[in-house]
């Protein structure tokens, strides 16, 4: 087992390429990876990463994905949902879809199950898989737009073993990068999740390279004591980026709650008139992890960390490595 720790900037620079297909874990209010998308934007603006025409795959388009869309870096989205649940729909995704601003994007609608099954097919190296969903209605025919006209997506097939039942054949999704947020990971890439699994198992397995963003790096001994809590085995993980509060403003169950105030603030400032100012502060202004935390604010962090779900992480907290030790383990 080798040390897979990586800085945020190295992970983005090494794995994200022009036209990459990027799958993100989590759910609209939980364990998303906005920090990874922010770093793409930062490197793009700094001219050290040349990306365009990205394809985003995931449970929804919320804060991070929306900003990539707003900056015109996204060609296509494959997702079952276009918003933040109750805080609201993605203003930016709506503008791209309804008005083609700042550019037209392609959107492939899935259901939550059909998305999971397409990723499962990718994970199991199957070109296609069967699904009970996707045989009826418009979900089955709205594929990613080819020549600006919709084309048939799912294929409906009758059971060849004689039950007369019909299923959909769904094409696999094989992302170039799968990026997921975890509360805890060790240096070997073993990632622990507390709370719901969403699509994460299959997203993490479908990617050519899988990157974990971890609030805390823990001693491998914690994995050996709680090996059944490891949702992402290091054997399948390419890099682990230590980044406390990386999931913010989504939650990280076990550590902090979702920041719905900030989500609403983001949605209010999602129009082009105000977005640039928002991004200056929340994407570009900071130059270190400490400054990133300052932008969120200590009071805000304390408020978000005062959460009933923290009871779930109690057994793991004693194994958290101190920041200086993690810094020493980071390459470079």
């Amino acid at each position, binding site marked *: 087992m080798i040390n897979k720790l990586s800085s945020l900037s190295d992970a983005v620079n090494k794995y994200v390429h022009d036209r990459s297909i990027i799958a993100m874990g989590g759910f609209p209010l939980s364990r998303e990876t906005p920090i990874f998308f922010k770093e793409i934007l930062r490197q793009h603006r700094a001219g050290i990463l040349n990306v365009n025409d990205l394809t985003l795959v995931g449970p929804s388009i919320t804060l991070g994905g929306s900003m990539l869309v707003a900056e015109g870096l996204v060609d296509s989205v494959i997702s079952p949902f276009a918003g*933040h649940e109750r805080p609201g729909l993605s203003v930016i995704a709506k503008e791209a879809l309804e008005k083609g601003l700042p550019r037209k994007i392609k959107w492939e609608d899935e259901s*939550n199950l059909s998305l999971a099954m397409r990723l499962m097919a990718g994970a199991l190296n199957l070109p296609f898989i069967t699904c*009970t969903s996707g045989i009826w*209605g*418009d979900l089955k025919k709205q594929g990613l737009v080819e020549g600006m006209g919709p084309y048939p997506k799912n294929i409906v097939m009758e059971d060849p073993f004689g039950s007369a039942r019909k299923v959909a054949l769904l094409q696999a999704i094989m992302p170039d990068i799968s990026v997921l947020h975890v509360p805890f990971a060790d240096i070997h890439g073993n990632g622990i999740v507390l709370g719901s*699994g969403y699509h994460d198992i299959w997203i993490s397995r479908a990617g050519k390279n899988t990157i974990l963003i971890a609030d805390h790096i823990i001693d491998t001994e914690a994995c050996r004591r709680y090996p059944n809590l490891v949702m992402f085995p290091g054997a399948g993980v390419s890099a682990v980026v230590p980044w406390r509060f990386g999931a913010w403003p989504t939650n990280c169950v076990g550590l902090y709650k979702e920041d719905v105030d900030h989500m609403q603030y983001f949605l209010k400032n999602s129009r082009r008139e105000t977005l640039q100012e928002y991004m200056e502060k929340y994407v570009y202004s900071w130059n270190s992890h400490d400054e990133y935390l300052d932008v969120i604010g200590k009071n805000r962090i304390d408020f978000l960390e005062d959460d009933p779900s923290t009871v779930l992480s109690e057994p793991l907290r004693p194994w958290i490595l101190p920041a200086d030790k993690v810094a020493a383990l980071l390459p470079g």
Partner: protein
Amino acid sequence: MSDNGNHKDLLKKYTPMEFACCASARYCADDMNVFVGVGLSLLPAQLAQRLYAPDITIIYEGGTIGATVVGGLPWGVDVTCIQANAECHTDVVGTLGWLCQKGKVELTYLGAAQADKYGNLNTTLRGDDYLRPAARISGSGGAHDLAIGSKTFVVIMNHREDRIVDKLDYRTTPGFCEGGRSRWEEWGFAGGGNGAIYTDLAVLRPNPDSYELEISEAYPFTSIEEIKKKTGFDIKVAKNFKWTDIPTEEEIDIIRNKLDITGDYTGWTKIIKKN
């Protein structure tokens, strides 16, 4: 109650969505596995659990099972106050793929932007062009999957001429498909389909032969005439039509003081001064 409804004074005491919540909560019973979606559909299952059906198990699509919510009504199915106190966490494949498709979910609550006369739902877009929709909305989420597998599902939504329609702008989620027995004979879906739609005016249920929605109940503050006017197809009144019961004091107490404390979901704070 009344033969003609139209008791507008009721709207000073209750909101239309309180009627919808209380009526739809009564669908829960015994030890059902109940699946709960985002938004207003979070409310009735929790109301039922506190009042009529303490043994139900609530399932959220992200993977949370058997949770007791800490605090008020959550902002989504994946918030920490739902996940902090659950009996088990699985994932989307476990909830939507297994429990639901395998027939282990008795009841699902859904929301929708549009429903057609066969109870099919649209939550994806408004307008007639997928490539340039007049309004993009949320998308399927898990609704398509839940509607296929759940033993029954009920919908809570607004009642307007462009919401309860003859033809959907986008067919996201199957109810009774093309009507009659088509849901089962043509498509072979495992679940029982759409049990009822609770709008802010009425309860619509499928006719047992044609599977076309009918006015099964109406809230006593409205009238059949108003409902028909606000429906986008020529809706019939069911044989066993009745006026919906007025919410009980107990129901209202729990909604206003325990679940929807801010009134964000049911709007009750717009008619009643909060203490």
